[in-house]
């Protein structure tokens, strides 16, 4: 696993200082921003995309877009907020583009080695990469059945524990839209889980 380079605390510049330097032409400073944020962005992207190459693609798009739009960043709000908003929106756009290829039959998403119900009961150990991979497969199979907007809201609300207001700020959607999507997401998720369990019972 690649560890992030940690600079000595005295040399740490704030995000805003780095952004200002990049905008003024010190392009190499952008690498500092990448190193600072890439673990978080990879973690976030893996919640939306199962395939590792898709994850890398979307993270690459996020950073290149950030560089292109850096001049439009107003120093009135923290860089982190602006950057996370851009990241979430890029993930959403990528999800929408992939929507056509996403549809899969429920039976294709059932596991051969272990029942769905059994997997749900075995919460994976964080030290076991194989178990984590299996768990991630299960989560993605359910999340893949949910509409894109609802998926973004469900992930942020239920898995990351963010409030409706935070989600609204991150996505740029109105609070009422987030609330509607949160309700829809729970409904869609419930239906998907039931579908998997019922299909497995029949087989």
């Amino acid at each position, binding site marked *: 696993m690649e560890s992030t380079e940690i600079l000595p605390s005295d040399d740490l510049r704030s995000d805003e200082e780095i952004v200002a330097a990049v905008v003024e032409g010190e392009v190499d400073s952008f690498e500092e921003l990448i190193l600072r944020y890439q*673990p978080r962005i990879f973690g976030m992207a893996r919640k939306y995309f199962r395939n590792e190459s898709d994850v890398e693609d979307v993270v690459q798009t996020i950073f290149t877009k950030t560089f292109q739009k850096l001049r439009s960043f107003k120093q009135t709000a923290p860089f982190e907020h602006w950057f996370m908003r851009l990241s979430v929106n890029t993930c959403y756009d990528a999800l929408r583009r992939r929507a056509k290829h996403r549809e899969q039959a429920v039976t294709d998403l059932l596991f051969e080695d272990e029942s769905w119900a059994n997997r*749900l009961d075995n*919460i994976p150990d964080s030290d076991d990469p194989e178990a984590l991979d299996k768990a991630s497969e299960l989560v993605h199979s359910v999340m893949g059945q949910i509409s894109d907007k609802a998926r973004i809201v469900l992930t942020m609300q239920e898995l990351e524990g963010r409030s409706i207001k935070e989600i609204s700020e991150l996505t740029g959607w109105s609070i009422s839209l987030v609330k509607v999507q949160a309700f829809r997401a729970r409904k869609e998720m419930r239906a998907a889980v039931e579908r998997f369990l019922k299909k497995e019972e029949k087989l």
Partner: protein
Amino acid sequence: MSASDKDNKFLKLAKAIPLNEQGPSGFSKRIMVKVREQNSRETTMADERFLRFARNISENQHTPYKFEKRIMALVLDWKTENPFTVWSRVLWRAVAPCIGIMVLTALIAFNQDAPITDSQPWLSMDNPEENFEIDTTDFETVMLASFDDLEYTW
């Protein structure tokens, strides 16, 4: 009357009573409330189980080897842009103003309906607005004067 006759009479009477199939009012609704409660409890359990499971998966923040170098290579590539790309971008930007000028000139040309006479001076000092009214044939003669002279050299 024997005991068996009494039994038969009783059975006959019992059979003669019509079957009352009517249930208490709202009974089905009462049952359905219970069925829905149970169903929602089961489904809630399933989705709660799923959410508990999903929340407990630790976030994988692994970063591919030298990923930042890859991004920096892309970024630096943009920084040293091809001059032709920049030139074509500038040309495209010039399209809108050019079209605007073209439309404006066309409008001015079509709105010039007043005929210009030969007696009219080329440049009027008294009325500067008349300066715009230039006869096209005169204009052509002036423009091609140098080429006309060229013919005489042969």
